[in-house]
């Protein structure tokens, strides 16, 4: 009896001593989700969809890599309408100097390529499995599918504009763009032609517009793509393809439900998407800010960073001078460096007073103002209704319908300058009038490089206040190799289909 008891005790001891650490027995990690779980219900799909939107403003592997927000800075710094004051920090300096995008080993081409393909990978996996989701209504599935297709089109649209030569209407456009990912694959893919990519972009957007027709209205935070945004993307694409009719049609559809903001709202700092004309943006919470970086650490006028303090961003003086004196947008730029009331500049968060170390220059901006100068977070604009007026007006001019163009642009212009008499808009000069309206309206929102490339215009920084010392180049001829991003070497090494880089 006693012996038996001992045997049992020993046996139990042996078993307990010999057992594995408990975590060895787990068949799934505790901090991550198995891919099969994604399609368990529609909510999981939506959680992944939200992650895709986060990819538009999260930080990748460096301080210059805050998602689409960083690309917006790159596009404007490559242009002529933002003028740098000083050498400042190294961040984005290589873009201002037209260096980063032309080096296959630079972080910028890799970051851009990686971000858009990461979005595409997530989107394509979801699209492949979304029909298998149990207990979801067709409407629920279609709404998500509509957003996914629009995001796929958006990513391909960015990729083709960066890595391909520009689309030319009426041509074959068989120049190479970037790999076209309409399905998920871990295998390397060849580059598709620019024509093929636009074909897919349009197909996705057309479907998205149809699918999103039944989507419920968004809340106050317009971070998701809805039907109006899909129309807006379609209008952008049509403008880039010089398809004026489509651009007019979709721009009009896109802005239908929005009203232009008031002049007082225009001076509110552009960091709150509850504004009446914001169509799409990122809602960046304080806890989602990277330790260093974020859009407003570079682009706000009041957050105190090593980027904003010594190097306030100025407006191109030629663009500034072409504005009427009563235009509200003129008031975003400092005319008098001693005007601390209207232009306090960079704020020292501990005193709440203007930072004494800040550099002050005439024409420095206060377009982007963060709500709390101690925190570099705020909403980041991806699309506003004003852009839709500009697309429509530009397309009308290109289509030869000058009076209609004037009628559209004057709505925007008279909102921004309430004392403007439209008689003073010269119809013979309407094309450059719209161009100025576009540049001032979208200043700092990441359009200029793409606009110059799309219109096949040269970059001309002469007389803008820019110097070769800071910007390296004052001019870059239209077209040519300088307008294409290099494919990152990292991709060429792992992709046997891409043997040759862009010249």
């Amino acid at each position, binding site marked *: 009896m006693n012996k038996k008891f001992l045997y049992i005790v020993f046996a139990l001891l042996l078993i307990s001593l010999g057992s594995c650490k408990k975590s060895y027995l787990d068949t799934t*990690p505790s901090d*991550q989700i198995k*891919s099969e779980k994604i399609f368990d219900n529609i909510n999981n799909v*939506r959680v992944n*969809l939200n992650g895709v939107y986060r990819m538009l403003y999260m930080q990748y592997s460096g301080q210059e890599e805050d998602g689409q927000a960083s690309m917006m800075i790159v596009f404007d710094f490559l242009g002529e309408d933002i003028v740098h004051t000083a050498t400042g920090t190294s961040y984005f300096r290589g873009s201002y100097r037209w260096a980063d995008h032309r080096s296959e080993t630079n972080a910028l081409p890799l970051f851009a390529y990686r971000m858009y393909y990461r979005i595409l990978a997530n989107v394509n996996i979801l699209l492949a499995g979304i029909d298998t989701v149990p207990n979801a209504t067709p409407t629920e599935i279609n709404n998500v599918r509509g957003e996914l297709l629009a995001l796929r089109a958006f990513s391909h649209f960015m990729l083709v504009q960066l890595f391909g030569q520009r689309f030319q209407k009426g041509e074959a456009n068989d120049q190479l763009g970037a790999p076209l990912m309409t399905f998920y694959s871990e295998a390397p893919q060849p580059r598709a032609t620019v024509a093929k990519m636009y074909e897919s972009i349009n197909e996705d957007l057309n479907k998205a517009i149809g699918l999103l027709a039944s989507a419920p209205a968004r809340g106050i935070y317009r971070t998701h793509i809805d039907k109006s945004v899909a129309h807006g993307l379609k209008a952008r694409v049509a403008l880039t393809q010089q398809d004026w009719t489509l651009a007019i049609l979709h721009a009009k559809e896109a802005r239908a439900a929005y009203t232009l903001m008031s002049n007082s709202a225009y001076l509110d700092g552009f960091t709150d998407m509850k504004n009446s004309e914001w169509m799409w943006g990122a809602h960046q919470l304080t806890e989602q800010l990277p330790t260093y970086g974020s859009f407003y650490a570079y682009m706000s006028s009041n957050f105190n960073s090593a980027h904003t303090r010594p190097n306030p961003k100025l407006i191109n003086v030629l663009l500034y001078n072409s504005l009427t004196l009563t235009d509200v947008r003129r008031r975003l730029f400092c005319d008098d460096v001693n005007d601390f009331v209207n232009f306090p500049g960079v704020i020292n968060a501990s005193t709440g007073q203007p930072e004494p170390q800040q550099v002050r220059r005439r024409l420095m901006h206060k377009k982007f103002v963060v709500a709390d100068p101690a925190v570099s977070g705020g909403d980041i604009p991806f699309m506003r209704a004003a852009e839709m007026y500009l697309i429509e007006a530009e397309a009308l001019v290109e289509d030869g319908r000058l009076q209609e163009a004037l009628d559209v642009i004057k709505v925007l212009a008279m909102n921004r300058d309430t004392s403007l008499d439209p008689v003073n808009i010269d119809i013979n000069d309407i094309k450059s009038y719209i161009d100025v309206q576009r540049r001032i309206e979208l200043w700092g929102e990441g359009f200029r490089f793409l606009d110059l490339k799309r219109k096949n215009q040269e970059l001309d920084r002469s007389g803008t206040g820019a110097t070769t010392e800071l910007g390296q180049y004052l001019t870059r001829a239209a077209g040519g190799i300088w307008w294409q991003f290099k494919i*990152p070497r990292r991709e060429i090494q*792992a992709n046997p289909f891409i043997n040759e880089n862009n010249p």
Partner: protein
Amino acid sequence: MKLRGSYGEVGNDRTGSYFTYMNLYTLGYDNGSEPGMIFTQLGNDKLQWETNYNADVAIEVSAFKNRVGATVEAFRRQSKNLLFDINMPITSGVLTRDDNFGSMRNEGIELQLNGVPLKTKSFSWNIVFNATTLRNKIVSLPDSYVGRQNGTKRYNVGRSLYDYYLYDFVMVNPNDGTNLYLPVDKATTANRVIVGADTLTSSTANAQYYFAGSAIPDFFGSINNTFTYKNWSLQALVIYQIGGYTYDNDYQSLMFRGSTSATSNGRAMHKDMLTRWQKPGDISTVNKVDISASYLSQSDRWLTSSNYLNLRTVALTYSFPKKMIARLKLTNAKAYVNGENLFITSKRKGLDPTQTYTGSASYTYAPSRIVSFGLNLTL
């Protein structure tokens, strides 16, 4: 005489995770206040163990009552299915994933000789000599790694992981003090400079890479001498290496005055800078002083022979006589003087080739010379 051998296979699953075969998503990527997650791991369900096959054969002989002995040992360690983070096409949505990398082989021969040249009742001299030669070879590689430059080396099947692949620096241009390299193509290369009968290039963009030597020495080893006389014993260990090159990053950074930026303007320089090119006609192997770091371009100019001889340790020990110990009620008592790193000879003063496996010395500290005295008592 003795013949011995061994063979073993060892597996390795060190990937840092038990879940490398799964596709995984990570939570916490919220969109504003809406919960979000993203695809973060591409699984590999074909992942295998990394296996190391170790084999060695040795012959040991001894003669004259073990007064003379020798061991010759041949060893080979073949690694297959090495576990690595492989670069994926970026279109896959991830940068890397765990995969079996390829295979690599290390093999070599080790020779050890030991002898007791002198032995009397109160005196003995014991000597052990050791030499090893080693070869490393990449047997196979995934396509995406073939020919990839990795710092100063390059991955090539059939070559060693430790072969330098560098520009061929030839000389400093006597006319303007810039560096001249062997060009890729003597006829069409841009930035051509004709020196005598040779065509060179002043731009690394046109310079030719070549396999410039290996970080692995021809052979290396040690010599250990032990002398004992009555209660005294003296032991001296010398280690050495013959062949192989060090890429001397430290020297490279000392051959630069710094740029004009506030943080790097003006730096300490190596005394070789005194022999630099200064005026047209100067023949030198050191370029002119310049603020541009481009003169420091990675080339075989920075390779330095790794030959060295290092007196690693010398130890003199006195063991107190047994009688005395017994009287003091101790079991053991010793007094000693130890010296470590008493000297090293290397091609360049200050260079310590013993500190790196990959051959790239960088921010190394010279090992300190230590002399210690001690008394060891055991109760």
